[in-house]
């Protein structure tokens, strides 16, 4: 992922079949071939590998107008990692300077400090109160998850497994309810939970910025901390954090980096929490919960085969809980990390299709394992109508 040149062979695999048109959320709004993986990859090759076209404002726009949602890669018969190619191209073109210095500094501080601590926290709260932040960003929680829950949460009965919990930034600062549900549901099912100290952001926002130096900074903090834990698995509630550790982290490090073997070993142990619970099975049978749900599958799901179905299986185990399927459960909501801030109209257009689909189900609550989707959908649906599936299980247990 370091260098766009390393993707020469992958780019050459594009047969130009155009099947990426079926799932690219941006293309399905713009209907412009230039904004399709097939052309993006071609352009990146022409501009950055072969040098037959110059770097222009339009080329940068083509690079930027990508959600990195991975839908094209999952549709691609050759499995071309388009998101990585775009990230590598951003890295080459912007060299870590995609934003102005102030915003870059803010992002770096945010990622290192896992959100809102000290001055950053105060600044964040003030900005939110003043209406300076996008409406899609909810107010930061009064106390972050890490402040509420620290160290170790013992299993309720005899521990049958021990997991480390990687707490994503969004859960930590915006949705501590998810974090609370994760640790309590796991403990309730006789799984001991460690919350390793010193975690920082998984690095995904830096990857999207094409700032590989910053991604590596995150890796250098997170990987040793998680690798040191003597646990059966590492769980996260966020599909993007999961994808980062499982599918991207090792690749973001140079081939001879001493941290790379650790990152590779770590990858195999990473699970999204509902996926993990399905694998190990619930010990405690959930009591009935008479509510209706629909399920929006986050785009960053290709890193495991089962994560997309996991919430469905969990819900099926809760008596009286009703799942009303979306017509297009796997279509993107338009959030794409911070994409919705850069391309407001486009993101809102993508979202409007998702909202129409959601409304048609008549379900009370939308479930999704991605905090960005949650934030982006909640402003239109109401705060309490979008949540993480693990929260439903916690509710059924009365936790």
């Amino acid at each position, binding site marked *: 992922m370091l260098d766009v040149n390393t993707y020469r*062979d992958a780019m*050459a*695999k594009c*047969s*130009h*079949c*155009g*099947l990426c*048109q*079926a799932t690219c959320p941006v293309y399905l709004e713009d*209907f*412009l*071939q*230039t904004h*399709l993986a097939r*052309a993006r990859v*071609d*352009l990146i090759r*022409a501009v950055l590998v072969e040098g037959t*076209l110059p770097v*222009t404002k*339009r*080329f940068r726009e*083509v690079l930027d107008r990508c959600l990195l949602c991975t839908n094209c890669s999952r549709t691609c*018969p*050759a*499995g071309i990692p388009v998101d990585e190619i775009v990230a590598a191209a951003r890295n080459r073109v912007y060299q870590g300077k995609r934003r102005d210095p102030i915003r870059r500094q803010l992002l770096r501080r945010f990622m290192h400090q896992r959100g809102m601590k000290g001055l950053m926290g105060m600044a964040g709260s003030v900005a939110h109160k003043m209406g300076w932040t996008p409406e899609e960003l909810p107010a930061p929680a009064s106390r972050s998850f890490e402040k509420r829950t620290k160290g170790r949460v013992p299993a309720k009965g005899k521990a049958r497994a021990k997991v480390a919990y990687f707490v994503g930034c969004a859960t930590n600062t915006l949705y501590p309810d998810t974090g609370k549900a994760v640790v309590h549901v796991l403990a309730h099912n006789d799984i001991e939970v460690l919350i390793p100290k010193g975690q920082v952001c998984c690095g995904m926002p830096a990857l999207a910025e094409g700032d590989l130096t910053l991604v590596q900074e995150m890796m250098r903090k997170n990987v040793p901390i998680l690798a040191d834990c003597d646990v059966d698995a590492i769980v996260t509630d966020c599909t993007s954090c999961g994808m980062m550790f499982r599918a991207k982290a090792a690749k973001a490090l140079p081939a001879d980096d001493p941290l790379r073997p650790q990152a590779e070993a770590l990858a195999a142990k990473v699970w999204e929490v509902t996926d993990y619970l399905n694998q190990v099975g619930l010990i405690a049978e959930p009591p009935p919960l008479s509510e209706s749900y629909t399920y929006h599958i986050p785009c960053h799901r290709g890193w495991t085969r089962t994560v997309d179905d996991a919430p469905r299986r969990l819900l099926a185990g809760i008596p009286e809980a009703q799942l009303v399927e979306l017509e297009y459960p796997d279509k993107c909501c338009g959030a794409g990390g911070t994409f919705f801030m850069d391309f407001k109209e486009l993101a809102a257009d993508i979202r409007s299709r998702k909202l129409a689909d959601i409304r048609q189900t008549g379900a009370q609550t939308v479930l999704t394992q991605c905090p960005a989707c949650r934030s982006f959908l909640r402003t239109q649906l109401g705060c309490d109508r979008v949540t993480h599936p693990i929260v439903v299980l916690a509710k059924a247990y009365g936790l």
Partner: protein
Amino acid sequence: MKGLAKDLARRVARERVKTDPEDLFAYGGDATYYVKRGNPDAVVLPENTEEVSEVMKYAFRHAIPVTPRGAGSGLSGGCTPLHGGIVLDMKRMGRILDINRRNMSGRVEAGVVLADFHKAVKKQGLFYPPNPQSMNVCTLGGNVATRACGPHGVKYGATGDYLMGLEVVLPDGSVIAPGGLAARSSAGYDLTHLFAGSEGTLGVITKVNLRLLALPPAHRTAVVACESIEQAGDTVSEILAGGTLPAMIEFIPQMAIVAMNNYITPPLITEGQAYLLIDLDGTQDEIKAQTGHILGICRRMGVLDIRVVEDEKEAQTYWTARSNLGAMLLTVMKKAINEDVAVPRERIPEFVREIQRMASTLSKVVLGIGGHAGDGNMHPSIFFPEVNSEAENEAQATIRKVVRLGLSLGGTVSGEHGIGFHKAEFLHWELGEIQIRLLKRIKKAFDPKGIMNPGKLWKDGRAAPCSM
């Protein structure tokens, strides 16, 4: 070309006229990019027939080449703008205008995606059979322009068999609507079907009227393992001649079964030289009778194994595995070229044998074959373990040999992909000089200035007007 952009922006909203080099580059062609790509001078994304007409009037006046395109998923270079000019991207004309259950017909704009149409039609208990494997992206306008088909061809025929009427913008901007929504018509020359397979060389298809069928209530899948290619060919002939018409019969070579077994539980036996993947459709009673018939024939033919998959969901895994074959191969190969030579059904074994012999002589590329056995519509495919000029040369030479072989067996150069520029030379081989001249005269009647998709169907392409 600033003047061109300005002129076009007067006819179509500015934001739907693209002239940045990056946009022009993106519209260089389709899945035949490896042979040739073109660079248009402008890309226009019209939203209605009037806009298309305005663009055509302008192009006609200034004799600017126009290349219409749908999804650009073609395998013959039909939408490659070989002579620059204007590319008309029809994807924004993507409305399903009507699905009429009482008339069993549908009316759509040219840019409607086939799979979306399938879905909409199915919601009303109806069925539109053509199913090229690019159905998730290809457009109905493109399907008409190439006479696309797919595995359903054996029972249900190709796009042309469902075409009732069209709306077309002619090169001078005038709009015609040949055909209509009546099931039959004997009103003079059949202009509607002349546009089927015209590949954008006669005008721009803007709307399509299509015949629909009732949705078959049930399906059943069967897999037959044959000890030889001849036995597979004979089995297909016996099944069809015996009166059972499966919705799909796919021919799958042994090497592909090994890959497909990754998806299938329990795995299929691998001793067969050739396999038939069959889909039966109809009412439960019809399917039961068809299954009995096929089992009887297969036993009589002494096939190695036959598996009937009762569960429709499980059956889907077989078809998914079939669709993913190319994908599975692309994970180990660097590139693939898919051809579509069709031969008379009885010549399939001969065709396959000769292809396999040919394959054994190759050193830089791999030649494989599968296809729609029911109608002889075969897909020889060339895979590149490495992409280099030697491999390209061997691939191109092989394609020529495969086409000559198909023609020598009484076949055609294209069963369903169309000619584009990629097979323009081969069309000469198949049709001969007299027919080609006739085609050129038809072309000239529609397109006197030769502006519509020049460079396609025959080699001298653009020369249509001056060669007369």
